């Protein structure tokens, strides 16, 4: 469904060995393909550019220090993202413990079904529409409005194109949890974006009609 974006260096295993053997200068080459994934993972939790950069960079340095303990049970990219997620959660806990209660949220998702709120008919998006400022701004607002536990899975799976299994590994969830949260994240995004579907993004109209059957 989606294009893989985490393209490792073809000599990744060799690079890891060389760094472990003391060739420090190889480390940047090793992590360069994952810079965006690491930053986006930090953003998915912190939702603040400066904090996300700080955490992303600290996470990469941490990976560097602990590279010898990388066991290759997971992909290097997943391991790196996992370290970043942990660092981001630590930072959140430290900085805004009182504002963010779901850091240690239970791993079950016992919420009920998600009922769509809007049924605007949304077919193919013309490619020129994708670049419209209004649409991109609405997209950002919709992403910002998601609860962090949904934003995390959405960003790792649909923005960074990790597999469901890799997303689960990176977040310390089961694949079942990931699927449940992914469904809710995508549905909430759709509802958040639906108001513009019949309106300004596709036709330049400023008004839109909400479609509600009930």
């Amino acid at each position: 469904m989606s294009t893989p974006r985490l393209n490792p260096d073809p000599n990744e295993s060799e690079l890891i060995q060389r760094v472990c053997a003391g060739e420090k200068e190889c480390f940047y080459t090793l992590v360069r393909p994952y810079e965006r994934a690491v930053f986006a993972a930090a953003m998915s939790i912190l939702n603040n550019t400066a904090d996300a950069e700080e955490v992303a960079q600290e996470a990469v340095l941490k990976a560097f220090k602990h590279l010898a303990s990388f066991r290759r049970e997971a992909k290097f990219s997943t391991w790196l993202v996992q370290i970043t997620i942990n660092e981001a959660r630590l930072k959140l806990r430290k900085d805004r413990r009182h504002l963010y209660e779901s850091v240690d949220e239970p791993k079950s998702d016992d919420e009920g079904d998600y009922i769509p709120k809007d049924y605007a008919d949304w077919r193919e998006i013309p490619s020129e529409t994708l670049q419209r400022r209004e649409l991109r701004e609405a997209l950002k607002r919709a992403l910002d409005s998601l609860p962090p536990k949904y934003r995390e899975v959405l960003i790792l799976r649909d923005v960074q194109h990790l597999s469901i299994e890799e997303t689960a590994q990176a977040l310390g969830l089961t694949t079942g949890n990931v699927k449940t949260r992914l469904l809710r994240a995508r549905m909430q995004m759709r509802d958040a974006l639906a108001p513009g579907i019949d309106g300004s993004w596709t036709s330049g109209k400023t008004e839109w009609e909400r479609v509600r059957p009930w």
Partner: protein
Amino acid sequence: MKVIEISCLEVWRQVSNYLENDVSAELRERIEAHVKVCAHCKAVVDGTKNVVKLIADGVEYELPQGFSQRLYRKIQDD
């Protein structure tokens, strides 16, 4: 063979798995038959598919300017 009907709620529960191609051939057939006759579910499935397509380019999470240089320097200085 007649396709067994499926409810709107079941379509909503499966929309994400359907887009992941993570449903059985039988369920896929049921969902597709339902969507053909239910405009609301068609809107939900199409819209969700479009959300996935929209965020796929990652524009919202581009690296800040100078990120790579700063990271490179940090690694060197470490």
